[in-house]
């Protein structure tokens, strides 16, 4: 009866599950580099994870560290913003009224801001069955803010074109963008659940009686990710989704290999892929190929075909079962495949909209350090529950078109 109740709870949570997205290196609750061990013979496991970000790094299209509002373009082109609209429309009229060409400086705005206050919490529950199987449910919660939004008008004061652009467009840039239908040029602070994920895992140990290699563990997983998190807000500057999927259902699947060595060392790798099903929603689109991504004026119903997410983990772990302490060092590489747009309208060009820098692939590289303490050494085998704690840190060091935070976090788990 108790088992049945636990199954029901687990299934319910599975259906509500959320998982986080990709503009940032959001916490992934079932990341193999931080999840607690799961081979101790208990039926259930409940894990709480807390994480805080600090010392952010923002990588732009060239892989260089830049301001978060400049990871796609180093400045926003307010003149190109006005192009690609119907002749006679107010936006087109304004563009012509400016009587100015885009020399690469005129009408360009350098936007700056800070991504701050990144926090993440996650709750995970697992149910083990048939020795080699378990299902898990992951529910993350995120908080992040964009603050200190400011801009610098790069337009010079050399000639009449400059003067017209300043007077009619950039001197009152934020209000003009908003009045023309663009996003609010302002900061924001958002808290939201991520995507709920439910995964079925299979694992099996293959003990070896060799001098060095003592065990080989193979594991596979597959599941479903259901959108429940805060989605991108097209009316607010750079309000990216607090999820991996921006409202899309996804199927994560993957597997790994863990090698246990005789000298209390473990090493292994893990590969996880996530296919996201495309969805249709109102999104901001480019109407001219040279437009900048942050100040697009046109919204349209767009089918977004998401690229595959590939995550690769490598790790080495010093595992000291005698005293319960362990130390893991890991490397993680994630690549977010290029997304594609398909417009639901013929008024604008899919080919142009598809050139948005924000749709291009994103990558991140980060180091994991995870210090663990497994209380199982201090508990008798017949103990009904057993705790586990670890302190981990993620140290990003490279990426492309990605916001990354150094993080420190705690994992608290109970087997029962």
């Amino acid at each position, binding site marked *: 009866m108790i088992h049945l109740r636990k199954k029901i709870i687990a299934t319910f949570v599975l259906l509500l599950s959320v998982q986080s997205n990709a503009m940032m290196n959001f916490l992934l609750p079932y990341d193999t580099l931080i999840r607690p061990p799961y081979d101790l013979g208990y039926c259930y496991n409940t894990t709480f994870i807390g994480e805080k970000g600090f010392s952010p790094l923002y990588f732009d299209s060239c892989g260089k560290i830049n301001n978060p509002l400049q990871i796609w373009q180093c400045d926003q*082109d307010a003149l*190109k913003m*006005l*192009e*690609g*609209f*119907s*002749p*006679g429309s*107010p*936006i*087109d*009229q304004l*563009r*012509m*009224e400016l*009587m*100015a*060409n*885009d*020399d*690469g*400086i*005129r009408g360009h705005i350098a936007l700056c801001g800070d991504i701050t206050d990144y926090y993440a919490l996650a709750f995970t529950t697992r149910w083990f069955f048939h020795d080699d199987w378990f299902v898990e449910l992951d529910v993350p919660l995120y908080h992040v803010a964009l603050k200190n939004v400011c801009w610098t008008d790069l337009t*010079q004061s*050399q*000639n*009449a*074109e400059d*003067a*017209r652009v300043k*007077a009619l467009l950039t001197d009152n840039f934020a209000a003009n963008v908003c009045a023309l239908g663009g996003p609010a040029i302002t900061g924001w602070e958002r808290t939201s659940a991520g995507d709920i994920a439910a995964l079925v895992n299979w694992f099996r140990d293959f003990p070896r009686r060799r001098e060095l290699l003592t065990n080989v563990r193979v594991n596979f997983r597959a599941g479903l990710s259901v959108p429940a998190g805060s989605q991108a807000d097209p009316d607010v500057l750079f309000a990216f989704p607090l999820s991996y999927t921006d409202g899309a259902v996804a199927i994560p699947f993957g597997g790994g290999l863990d090698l246990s060595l005789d000298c209390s060392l473990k090493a292994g790798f893990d590969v996880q892929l996530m296919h996201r099903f495309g969805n249709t929603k109102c999104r901001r689109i480019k*109407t*001219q190929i*040279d437009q900048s991504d942050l100040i697009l004026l046109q919204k349209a119903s767009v089918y977004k075909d998401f690229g595959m997410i590939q995550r690769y983990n490598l790790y080495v772990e010093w595992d000291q079962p005698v005293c319960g302490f362990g130390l893991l060092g890991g490397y993680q590489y994630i690549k977010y495949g290029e997304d594609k747009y398909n417009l639901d309208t013929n008024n604008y060009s899919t080919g142009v909209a598809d050139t948005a820098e924000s749709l291009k692939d994103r990558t991140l590289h980060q180091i994991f350090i995870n210090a663990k303490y497994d209380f199982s050494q201090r508990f008798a085998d017949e103990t009904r529950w057993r705790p586990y704690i670890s302190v981990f840190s993620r140290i990003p060091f490279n990426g492309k078109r990605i916001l990354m935070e150094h993080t420190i976090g705690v994992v608290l788990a109970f087997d029962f």
Partner: protein
Amino acid sequence: MKPVVRVLLTSLLMISHGLTWAPILLKGNVESSSVTFDFSAIAPVSTPIGRRLFTASSTSGALNYALTGVNQGMNDFAALAPQKVVLNGTVDQPNPLYNASISRLAIIDGVGITDDYLIAVLAQNPTQLYACVRFVPNPTVLASEPLADAFGNMPATIRQVTGGTSQNMMVFTAVSPQGEDFGVVGSGIANSMLDLKGTPTEQIFRNLNANPANTNGVRALPLDNTSAELRLTADPVAITAGSPISMYFHPSTFCMYVGLSLNTGTSGGRASLLVRPVAPYGLQKVAIAPAAAFSGADNYIVGTTTPDVSLDVYEQRFMQTSTGLPYLIVRGGYLKSPNNLFAFPIASGQSEPIYNGTLASKTSPVVDMFVGAGTKNIYQSRMFVERAEIPAQMTTDADVQAIIGGGAPLPLGSTVQETLIAGDTVFIFLDNNGGVWYSRALFGIDNKIAQWTYWQRYAGAVDGYIGGFLDRSNTLLTTLSVTGGNTVAQRTVWSPGDASISLPLTTAFGSTQYIDSYNQFTPGLCSSTLMVSLNNNRVTYAQTGLFDYARCIVVPTNGANYMDTVTYTQGIIEDNLGVNPAPSIVTISGGVLDAIAPLTADAVVTNGTNGWFCCGGLNGLAILSKEDGTGWNPTTELGANFLGLTQGMSFKKIGNYRFITRLVANPPYLYVATDKKIDRIDFTNPQDIIITTIATSTSLPFSPNATFMDLYASGPFALIASTKKLFRVGNGQDIRTALDESDLAWTEVPVPGQQTGPITRIVPVTKTGYPYDMDAPSNIYVLSADRGLDAGQINRYVLNAIENNTITDATLVPFADMFIQGILSPWVTLGAYRDDYGSDGALNFTISGQDLAKPASLQLLPSAPRTGGSILGPRVTPIQTGLAGGNSVPVLVHNDASGSWFVGGSNGVFVNE
């Protein structure tokens, strides 16, 4: 910058760059910085669009340069007469053209760049033809047999030669019996053909029988004093002994126009006729017009009934206008000098094909031909279908549509040496310091030429030429002049200017945002022409030319005179200009100009008793006047070296304007166009000017929120280019007298095929060159361009004479440009956004500013944009001018004095000279 510093800088520039920036001296057979050839070259020949130019030595001693040519883009003439050639299929033979004196050249224009065939006639032995059919490798010459005269006697004497096309490979030669003058019986037109089939040994230059009426051997088609095509009655004419013979083969009509000098004898005559090849062989003569057409008056140019007078046709050329109609351009004529040129319509589509190519009736209907079925017939061609058969149908020297140059004078003492047709424009090369001049056709609503612009200089302030060509693929003009037994071949180049002409001017302009040019017909100017450059708070006036009453022309200011400059930095004229100092360039900055800067527009305004300079900027309008508001006296000023600008004149602000886009002066009014309104300022009483608002963007039909991009105003008529549409003054209204905008009933002008939204530029083409004159009909080119769509197009309109100052629907009429029957269309579809358009009728330019990484550039439209064939898209040719790197929208303007094209931007001014 202080004047002395500017002069020093200019001097340094001239010293350091003078040789580089001068027109390129093409290199010939001598190492010289001033001469191309050390021999006198004969009149050059070139391929139609100027891919190659050939000339030859008129005297022996030129060795292998006896025949020479230069390729497009090359700066060195190639020696085309080596000592040894493949002669008639035999290798290593002495070249008969080597070191020869060559009297005549002709060309057969090949399809490709390497297959032009050059035909030469030796001065010492003008009895046979030599064809250079390959230059490298293995230079090959084919020599014809001696030509036969109309009797079949050999050798005949060659009097003139011209080439056909690469399709027929024919050569046509005017011959006379040996030792006789052309015109005696036995004279005629011989026909030869290059047969290049087979191996080199099989290739032959064959003489053909040109007379289908006599199959007995090879002979010329008779053309002599007794020819029926020349005389008007049974009485013969008398072709002038030794006179030049004009022969011009036109490939599309497949006929040759022959022009002669003759005495009309006892009953009058005709000096022009057609000769065309006929199947299966031979030539056919056709009178240019029937004899009956020449009766009555005697001003039919190519023929007259007046007895015993000289009738001289010096040159004939063919023109296919951009409206699709064919014209014969004739230089000379009855009682005409070699400097008189006329345009005759040519008939097509005749039921009897032999009459195709003859003169058309000047009242002929114009018929459009289409291909296809149903309602979607595609435009194919346009033609005059009615021949000139009676005097009333004949074009006369009183018809303004025929008078090329509009009757304006050419330099006295200079004679036209060669005529060149390019697009809608006729160019002439004059000797004796005459330079190169041009006149452009203006069209009426029936697509016919309605009149011609006045002759205007195109190049060459002090040079005399024997010929040249305009390369319409790169805008560069090549000229040849012969002085003292030497030949100088030069080619223009886009650069900051020639040190001896425009370099000091472009240096004085420096970085610019706007350039304007005022010719001698500008109201308010007296005897001088000006260019004006605006840059932020600085305005620079340059006297580009001065009217020379002795030669009846404007003489451009030379580089040395441009060195005389004065600069005022407080917005005030501090001297009495004209005598001491007597500058050619005046630069004014500061004062009120600071307040209204950046400057965007300028105008010369007059009320008949006063003349003023006006400047408009983003922050206001200012006028240069004396303290009491008066300006210079326009009846005697603005004279040489700015005579009339006096000490104490200063810029004074008028009204309260913002974002001025265009100033249009039309005495006594100044129209001020800002982005949101248009005002008329009445300067009748300079102490009490009257400002009337005549259009606002917030009122119909402009609302909501149109932006005014450009303005044209002439007499009662005005045209507004806006981001919405094109608007004109309503029927029956008058912009000069309207009390407010409601009086003007602004009316939308349909823009055929308009898909590109905003109308950005209005480019008028008028007879005088002053853009707002009322000498109708004039033509108005309208540029529609949209940055958002990255698209543009050009439409054309005829502005007709406004009878009784009453505007009607017929005042402004679109050209009948079309692709599909019954649907008017743009003249040119550009396929991209362009900032400006400019044309001299031969070269059509667009210009665009830098767009992100795409640099600012000048683009040349394909050589012959024409009705029904002008979807251009990317087929424009970028011209390397030096604009790249500038950050402002460049400007394009034609210097009315020197004739050179100027482009300017934030990184300087560049000129094609």
